[in-house]
């Protein structure tokens, strides 16, 4: 008896749920229409190319297509791992990106705190607006500026060195200097922009914390260390996780534009190599395999850092 009641109850609920789903579906139809254009584009230009990843395990030939090209297992990966470019590209990619991470994580925090301590509102506003400005310069123009300014004969920096009786070395032909040029020009361009998110986080801090600290006789420096930094920590962690997840996606466009045959030993990174192998040498399979290797490492790093961060600071992306 009781069993039966439960059963009918369950059946009833099931039927209700079904009906509910039906009305939900009917209501959702117009929303699907709104999603349609983006869904089609995403399908064609993001999901269909995923199928092309099969090429990484084939000896792809355009004449045969993905369907009939012969499978070769991991041969393309092995070819890359055994090539002498493997060490160079991996080392350069890691070096430039870790260098960039180490510099670009603390500096925007410092800049936001600097701005936050300014009590002249006009000055603060001007300072912040100017610091965002270079972000809008295109990568092309930015690289052009780097090349012009660092030109060893006629560049601005060379002329500045000359004033002090020094001589500027030719940085763009020096593979050892490449990472410095890349990272510090990036700081110039994006420092202010990267600080926006911290500025917002700081403006959300309850002013009574500062009042209490002032009452207790805390100096500005002590307030920064004991209020600002702990309050910014979750934001710092989230952004750090995201950057580590993108560690191997070094600014491809910028590296490609600043590259030249003389600095290649310090500037060839995985993504520029993928480009050259794939679209200049037409070794489609090898190029796709190297790109896939890059993606897999990125995902492992992202998940790894997210896991560590969740364990230690309780903040994570997912």
């Amino acid at each position: 008896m009781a069993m039966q009641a439960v059963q009918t109850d369950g059946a009833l609920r099931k039927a209700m749920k079904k009906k509910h789903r039906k009305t939900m579906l009917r209501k959702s139809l117009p929303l699907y229409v709104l999603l349609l254009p983006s869904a089609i584009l995403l399908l064609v230009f993001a999901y269909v190319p995923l199928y092309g990843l099969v090429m990484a395990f084939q000896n792809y030939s355009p004449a045969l297509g993905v369907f009939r090209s012969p499978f070769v297992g991991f041969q393309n990966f092995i070819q890359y791992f055994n090539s002498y470019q493997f060490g160079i590209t991996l080392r350069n990619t890691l070096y430039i990106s870790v260098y960039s991470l180490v510099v670009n994580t603390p500096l925007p925090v410092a800049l936001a705190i600097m701005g936050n301590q300014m009590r002249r509102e006009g000055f603060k506003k001007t300072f912040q607006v100017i610091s965002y400005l270079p972000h809008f310069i295109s990568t092309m123009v930015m690289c052009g500026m780097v090349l012009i300014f660092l030109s060893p004969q006629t560049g601005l920096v060379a002329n500045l060195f000359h004033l002090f009786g020094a001589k500027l070395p030719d940085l763009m032909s020096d593979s050892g200097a490449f990472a410095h040029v890349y990272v510090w020009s990036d700081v110039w361009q994006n420092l202010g922009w990267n600080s926006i998110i911290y500025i917002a986080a700081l403006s959300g801090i309850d002013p009574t914390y500062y009042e209490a600290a002032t009452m207790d006789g805390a100096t500005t420096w002590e307030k920064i260390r004991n209020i600002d930094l702990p309050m910014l920590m979750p934001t710092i962690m989230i952004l750090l996780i995201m950057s580590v997840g993108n560690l191997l996606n070094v600014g491809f466009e910028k590296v490609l534009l600043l590259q030249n045959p003389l600095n290649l030993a310090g500037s060839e990174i995985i993504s520029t190599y993928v480009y050259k192998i794939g679209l200049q040498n037409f070794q489609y399979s090898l190029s796709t395999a190297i790109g896939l290797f890059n993606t897999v490492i990125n995902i492992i790093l992202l998940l790894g850092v997210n896991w560590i961060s969740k364990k230690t600071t309780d903040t994570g992306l997912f």
Partner: protein
Amino acid sequence: MELTKQKPKRRTQHVTHIARSGKDRAFDIVNYGFAILLILAIIYPLWFIIIASFSNPSDVATGQVWFWPKHWSLKGYEALFNQPIIWRSYLNTILYTGIGTLFALLVNIPAGYALSRDDLLGRKWINLAYVIPMFISGGLVPVYLTVKGVGLLNSFWVMIIPFAVSPYNIIVARTFFKQTIPASLWEAAQVDGSGTFRYFFQIVIPLSKAVLAVVGLWTAVGIWNQWFNALIYLQDQNLQPLQLILRRILITNQQLAGNTTGQLAAELQQLADMMKYASIVISTLPIMALYPFLQKYFNQGVMLGSVKG
């Protein structure tokens, strides 16, 4: 009574004005001093580009130009504007930016709205399907072959259509709609007999100018500065955008001017340098000039994009 009197008009951090210690004053001096140095470090290179573009080539090359144009000259601009390809590519960039931005808004904003609605069936999975491409991509070659396969190679529309969907911008729009459009509004519209489309286009969109501005500006700047897609997908010079022509002037240092008779190599190189300064000015000026008026929208975009959800 005392308390209300002390309440500050503006919300500033240091509400109480206890005498600041010597340490605090030292901090301020260092802080402001450093800020001024930073401002100069950002402004001066930009200023130098401008004054150099209006100076005499040999003065720039020999380091005679520091704070003000020397021997006012427009040679760089003349050499630049004598190239028909500059005009052509500039027009292309304007067209790509205008049409591409419009197209991207039409594609991304409705998607953001649909994903913001709680009653969308299968919302969780659809959301996931939009986020995955942010992390996994088929890679350069498969994407290239796909674009080629649908016949967009060397076509005007390759700069507009294939990369219009931006999961990031969709998330920005979704966050905005979730935060600012109350669910009760949709219920009220339904009572009035309004369907989803009418509600979206006549009520939601007019209330969402801020997010249209944010996403529109992001997209516009992105397309204005785009060059790599043009490099691999557009061989036809008449379709190439300004940034790709800039590459020849700024990076590969090609002489656009063919006529070299009677000119010294050094002089030619100086003229090429002047064209570099001038081309930076003409390509960057539009964005820089608009920027102060638009910067609040850019900031809003960063904030909307950072909210998890």
